C-alpha cells in the first residue's frame, strides 16, 4: 500500500510515450477575464478542429481543487492558453491546476500558449513537467494542433484542410466570397473564403449526423432537432433514434423518417457551428451573406438536391442572393439560387431569362421554387433585391420567411408549416 504520494509524485512523474487517444483531439481552453481572450483562444480551437471539452476563465470562482478535478475529468490531449503581456500572471493559478489535475495523466497533455512571447514562455515554463510550447501566431498554433491530431490518430482526419482548399478554389474561380458547409459524421465545417485567399473557418467537433449526432442533442437539446421534423414524433422516441444513430456511425437511412432525422440533425449541427463561430467573434454575418454557398459531405449526399438545398437554407439562413452548389462525385453542381426577402406587405419578383420573362407575387412567409434555367436577371418590386445569377437545376428559391426563420412552437402549427416547406421544394419522398 502506498500511503500519500510524496512531494515529487504529483508533478514529476516520468513521461510516457505520447500517443493520443482515438477520436478527436480534446482541448481545454484557458483564458483571461476579458471576453476577447476567450474569443481568441476559441477561434484557434475552431480553426484547428479540436473538441473543446472545457473552457475556464481566470476569474472562475471555483476552488483550486475543483478546477484541477474538472481538468482531470476532461482528460485533455491539449490545453490551450492565451496570455497578455500586462497580465501574464493571470493564468498562473490555472496552470497550477493543470499540473495538479493532469500531470499524472497518461499520456500527459500538451500545453500550447499563445499571445505575448515573454509571458507565454514564462507560463509554459511554470507548467513543467507538462510539456509547454509557445506560438507567435494563431496560424502556427492551428498548424501544431492539426499536426497533433494527425500524428497518432488512426481514424480518418476530419475534412478540415480539404474543405478549406475547396473554399479557396471556389472563391478564386467565382471571384466572390464563398461559404463551404460540410457536414460529416463527427464534424461540421463552415468555411468562408474570400477571393484574395483569406479564410474564416469553423470546424465544430464532434457535431455531425453520425457519431456526433448525440452531441448535437446534448449541446442544443432534443427539441432543437425535433422542431425540424415534418412528421410528429415524441422526444423520448426521437432521442433513442439519435443515440442509436450515434453508435452506428456509417448507418444508411432507409426510411423517409430516418432521412428526415438526418436532415434535422444536419440543420442543427450547422446552426451550432455558426453559433460557435459567433461566440468566437468570427464573421458569421459574412458567412450568411456569401453569394456562393457550396455544400459538402453528408449534406451534399442526400438523394435529392432539394434536400441539400432546404437544409442549407434553413440552417445557414442566407441574407442575400446566394447560389447553392453541392459536391457530387468530386465536382460541384449548381442546385438553385436562393432569393431571401422580407417585403413590407408583398413583393413582385420578375425573372428575365432565355425562355422569356416570369413574374410572381410574393407574400410574407412565402417559400417556393420558380423554375428558371441559365442566366437570369432578377428584380423585385417591394423588396430590396436585384441581381443577375446563374440558376441551377431547381431554379430560383424564393424565401420570404424572414430572418431568423421562425418556426411555430405548437406541433399542430409547426408540422403543417414544415410539411408545406418540404412540399414546396419536393424535399421528402412521400
Amino acid at each position, binding site marked *: 500500500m502506498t500511503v500519500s504520494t510524496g512531494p515529487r509524485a*504529483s508533478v514529476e*512523474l516520468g513521461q510516457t510515450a505520447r500517443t493520443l487517444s482515438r477520436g478527436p483531439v480534446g482541448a481545454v481552453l484557458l483564458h483571461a477575464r476579458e471576453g476577447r481572450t476567450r474569443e481568441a483562444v476559441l477561434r484557434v480551437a475552431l480553426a484547428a478542429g479540436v473538441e473543446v471539452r472545457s473552457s475556464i476563465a481566470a476569474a472562475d470562482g471555483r476552488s*483550486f481543487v475543483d478546477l484541477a478535478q474538472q481538468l482531470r475529468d476532461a482528460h485533455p490531449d491539449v490545453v490551450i492558453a492565451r496570455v497578455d503581456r500586462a497580465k501574464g500572471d493571470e493564468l498562473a493559478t490555472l496552470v497550477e491546476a493543470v*499540473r*495538479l489535475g493532469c500531470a499524472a495523466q497518461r499520456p500527459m497533455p500538451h500545453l500550447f500558449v499563445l499571445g505575448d512571447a515573454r509571458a507565454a514562455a514564462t507560463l509554459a515554463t511554470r507548467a513543467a513537467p507538462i510539456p509547454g510550447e509557445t506560438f507567435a501566431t494563431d496560424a502556427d498554433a492551428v498548424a501544431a494542433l492539426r499536426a497533433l491530431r494527425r500524428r497518432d490518430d488512426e481514424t480518418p482526419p476530419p475534412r478540415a484542410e480539404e474543405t478549406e482548399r475547396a473554399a479557396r478554389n471556389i472563391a478564386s474561380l467565382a471571384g466572390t466570397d464563398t461559404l463551404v458547409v460540410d457536414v460529416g459524421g463527427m464534424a461540421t465545417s463552415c468555411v468562408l473564403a474570400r477571393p484574395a485567399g483569406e479564410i474564416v473557418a469553423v470546424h465544430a467537433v464532434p457535431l455531425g449526423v453520425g457519431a456526433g449526432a448525440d452531441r448535437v442533442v446534448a449541446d442544443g437539446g432534443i427539441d432543437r432537432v425535433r422542431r425540424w421534423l415534418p412528421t410528429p414524433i415524441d422526444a423520448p422516441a426521437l432521442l433513442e433514434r439519435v443515440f*442509436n444513430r450515434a*453508435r452506428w456511425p456509417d448507418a444508411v437511412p*432507409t426510411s423517409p423518417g430516418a432521412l428526415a432525422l438526418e436532415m434535422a440533425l444536419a440543420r442543427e449541427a450547422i446552426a451550432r457551428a455558426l453559433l460557435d463561430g459567433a461566440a468566437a467573434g468570427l464573421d458569421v454575418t459574412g458567412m450568411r451573406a456569401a453569394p456562393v454557398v457550396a455544400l459538402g459531405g453528408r449534406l451534399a449526399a442526400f438523394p435529392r438536391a432539394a434536400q441539400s438545398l432546404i437544409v442549407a437554407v434553413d440552417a445557414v439562413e442566407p441574407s442575400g442572393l446566394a447560389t447553392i452548389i453541392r459536391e457530387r462525385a468530386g465536382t460541384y453542381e449548381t442546385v438553385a439560387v436562393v432569393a431571401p426577402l422580407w417585403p413590407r406587405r408583398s413583393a413582385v419578383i420578375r425573372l428575365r431569362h432565355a425562355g422569356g420573362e416570369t413574374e410572381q407575387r410574393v407574400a410574407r412567409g412565402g417559400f417556393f421554387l420558380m423554375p428558371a434555367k441559365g442566366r437570369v436577371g432578377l428584380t423585385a418590386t417591394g423588396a430590396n433585391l436585384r441581381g443577375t445569377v446563374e440558376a441551377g437545376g431547381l431554379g430560383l428559391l424564393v424565401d420570404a420567411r424572414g430572418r431568423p426563420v421562425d418556426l411555430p412552437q405548437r406541433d399542430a402549427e409547426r408540422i403543417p408549416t414544415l410539411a408545406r416547406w418540404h412540399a414546396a421544394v419536393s424535399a421528402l*419522398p412521400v
Partner: protein
Amino acid sequence: MAWRYARWTAEHALPIGVAERRDLGTRVRAGDVIGAGATAGNVVRLAGARRLGIAAADLARLLRVSVGSEVVRGTVLARTGRRFARTLSAPTDGRLMHLTADGDLYFAPAAARWIVRSTLDGEVVRSDDACVAVAGAAWGLSGLAAYGPDAVGELALGVDAPTDELQPSRLDVRLGGRILVGGARIAAEAITRAHACAIAGLVAGAAPAAGLRVVYGNAITAAGSATRDDSPTVLCLVGFGTAPLPREVFAPLAALAGSRAAIHASSARLFVFAPADAGDFAQDAPDLTLAGDYGAVRPLANGRATAGEARFASEVTAEALRCGGEVIPTANVMPFDAER
C-alpha cells in the same frame, strides 16, 4: 465473439486527493479497495518559499511532510535555519494538496472520504495519482455504453427470456448488492427502483435514452457516462430503446448467475469471475442490425445473401444484404463485438 475468457485490464481513475493506493504487483479481488482519499474543503494558499526566505525550487527539499499527506493543525510543514529557524505550519487539520512552481502550498481540510474499488480479480499493473489499473483473467462481455459508477456483486437473472423487459415489480431489497440481468429493455422506473433497493448494477440489451437522461442528466451521450457519485449503474449491451439479447449472449448470463461479477463503467464491460471451463460460452454471436427508423437494434437471423446495390424507401442507394425476405443496407449490419 461476444463472451471471451481473457486477461483484461481495467483502469480505475482516481479523484484528486488520493491518500492511499495499492502498490504495483499487489494481488486484489474485485470489490477490494484499491485507492482511498478525501475530497478537499476550503482550499487555502500558503506562502511557502517566500515565508521561509528560500528559493522556490528549494522548498520541496525542505518540506517535512510529503505533498498529499494528511496532517493535524500545527504540524510543521517546512522548516529552515537552525538557531533562528523559520517554520511553516498547518493552519488546520487537513491535507497538503499541491506545491506550486512559485514555492507556495495549497492546503485543504478534508471534506469527505472516497474509496475506489477494483472491478477485476488480478494484480495492480499501474498505480499513480491519477489511476490504478488492475489486470486479471475473467469472463468478459463488452457492451455499448455504461452509465454510473463501477459496480461489483453477484450476477442474478431479472427476466425469464432475452426478449423480456425488466419489470420494476421484480425488484426488491432481497436483490440488494447483486448485478441484475435484464432482457431487451430496462425502463427508468426499473433503474431508479433498483437503486433504491441497493441493487449494485443492471445489465440489459438496451435502456431508453430518455430514461437515462432522467436518471443521469441531460448532458449524457450515447458514449456512456462513468461517474463517481451515488447513482445506479446501467450497462447497455446492444443499443438504446429496445434490443433483445442474442441467445449466445443471454445463455451464458443465465448459466453464470450466482457468480461474482463486476461492471467496469468507463470501458462498458461486464466481468464475471468464473473458471475458464465454466461453460462453452465463447460462441460467435449473430450480427446486429439497426432498425430502418433507427429506433431499435436487433440480432440478425442467419441465412443472408448479398443483394447488390439496392434503392430504399428513402431513395438512398446502397450496398445491401437480403435476409429472410428483407433487404438491409450492409452498413446497417455490424458484428456484435465490433468496436464502436
